[in-house]
């Protein structure tokens, strides 16, 4: 165990598999307090899965995860919920509650966890919606929003309780260049002004380079490389170069594990 005044999240020797497929196989990773940490990696390496493990939506088969010095596998349900109130999470697809309006979606955590007056709630919600540029959409229903708008509303909801740790699963996908710039700056500003610790999952090498303090490149169930974006960009590991420069050939297979191509096309039964 390391220094918890500096390390907010520590992952030790994490093993997690789905069925027979090992997704993580001895992962070690540390997230430092007050920094923006990027998790990168090819699609399907388990970035979303890792976020779910850190927040104990999933339970690993082996290994330990410490959040602020607490081994999360030992928490009771109510302790877990207490811990989760310190998290804000932006889901990959937004995950807005479809039977509530945009305003009520953002207000949802406040209504569930606080006894604030309606006026105060209204004030807070509109401020957060304003920050993502969607104050005007407060009365719309989630079904009326575009994908990018839904993700921005979800971001407003994730930060409405002023969490200490903000987790973003692919926050930059599907945004136009203008909103993209705004959101990137917002992530940075939230982190610096409020002293939040941020975890950003993204494929987007460019955006990560501008926003992250430290990045981890995940591959094959382990951390393949880590360091500041500059360090990663200039690293001479072949795998890192392949990912950072978007090349199809290299140590990371573009293809998901599969039987031989020729064999399968010719229809020979592999069983």
């Amino acid at each position, binding site marked *: 165990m390391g220094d918890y005044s500096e390390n907010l999240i520590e992952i030790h020797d994490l093993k997690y598999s789905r069925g027979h497929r090992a997704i993580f196989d001895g992962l070690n990773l540390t997230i430092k307090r007050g920094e923006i940490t990027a998790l990168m990696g090819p699609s399907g390496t388990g970035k979303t899965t890792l976020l779910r493990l850190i927040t104990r*939506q999933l339970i690993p088969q082996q290994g330990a995860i410490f959040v602020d010095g607490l081994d999360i596998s030992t928490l009771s349900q109510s302790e877990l919920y207490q811990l*989760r109130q310190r998290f804000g999470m932006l*889901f990959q697809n937004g*995950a807005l*509650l*479809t039977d509530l309006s945009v305003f009520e979606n953002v207000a949802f*955590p406040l209504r*569930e966890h606080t006894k604030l007056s309606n006026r105060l709630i209204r004030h807070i919600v509109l401020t957060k919606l304003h920050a993502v540029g969607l104050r005007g959409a407060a009365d719309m229903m989630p079904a009326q929003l575009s994908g990018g708008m839904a993700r921005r509303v979800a971001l407003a*909801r994730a930060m409405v*309780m002023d969490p200490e740790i903000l987790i973003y699963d692919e926050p930059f996908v599907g945004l136009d260049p203008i909103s993209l710039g705004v959101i990137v700056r917002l992530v940075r500003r939230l982190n610096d002004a409020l002293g939040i610790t941020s975890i950003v999952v993204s494929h987007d090498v460019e955006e990560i380079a501008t926003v992250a303090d430290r990045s981890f490149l995940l591959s094959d169930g382990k951390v393949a490389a880590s360091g500041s974006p500059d360090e990663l960009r200039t690293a001479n590991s072949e795998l890192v170069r392949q990912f950072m420069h978007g090349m199809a050939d290299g140590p990371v297979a573009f293809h998901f594990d599969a039987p031989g191509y020729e064999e399968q096309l010719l229809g020979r039964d592999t069983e």
Partner: protein
Amino acid sequence: MTRVLRDIRNNLVEFVRTFGAFQLFFLRLLRHSPAILGTRFGLVIKQVYNTGALSLVIIMVCGLFVGGVLALQAYSNMAVFNAEDWTGVAAHQVLVKELGPVMTAILFAARAGTALTSEIGLMKATDQLSAMEMMAVNPVRRELVPRFLGGVIAMPFLAAIFSAVGLFGAHVVGVELFQVDVGSFWQQIQLIAESEDVNEGIIKSVVFGFAASVIAVWEGYNAMPTAEGVGRATTRTVVITAISILVFDFMITAALI
């Protein structure tokens, strides 16, 4: 051959496991129910309204015709013995004790149960339940228990409405169509019907309400989080509810006789 046996064994083990999980789930819903009834009654009322409003029209229409057809059958049989006055009694007994609760529960499953299942299944498929978990809100308490209680509360009322409308249908057929004397039609019912008959109907509709609601909620919560999975779960809701209702009906009737 061994393969068939192994499949059978695996299916059996799977069935027992699922059934055990189902019972635990039911207990979990019950455990949270008092707190939700006490502190979040608004959520429950909303669901009573949802399920009730969804099923009300279909239940009234079906009740009317079922009552009517019962009177048709009863009249043509009673007429043989010159006992036309008993048309109402026959319709009443069948409606209140059997068809009211059973038909209501099956219609409820088809209309409101499927809606509950697909709502919950879609919330799961679109990560809404996970999002609640992450906001430190227990989705079982916030979404599942109110829906379950909504169904449990709505069902007895729906069954009562079904029987009442059914009696009206029987009256239309018996009195208006076949000219049974209005006085004796209703007087016979009053003379013969006992409060036990009504109690039996109430017991059944309460039990069916629990069964239909918990099945609908369970199927949604355990649906595969895909469009196809949710579709299959709604189908299972109807099938499993219909079977369980008929089995329960037999058991309760046998126990009360």
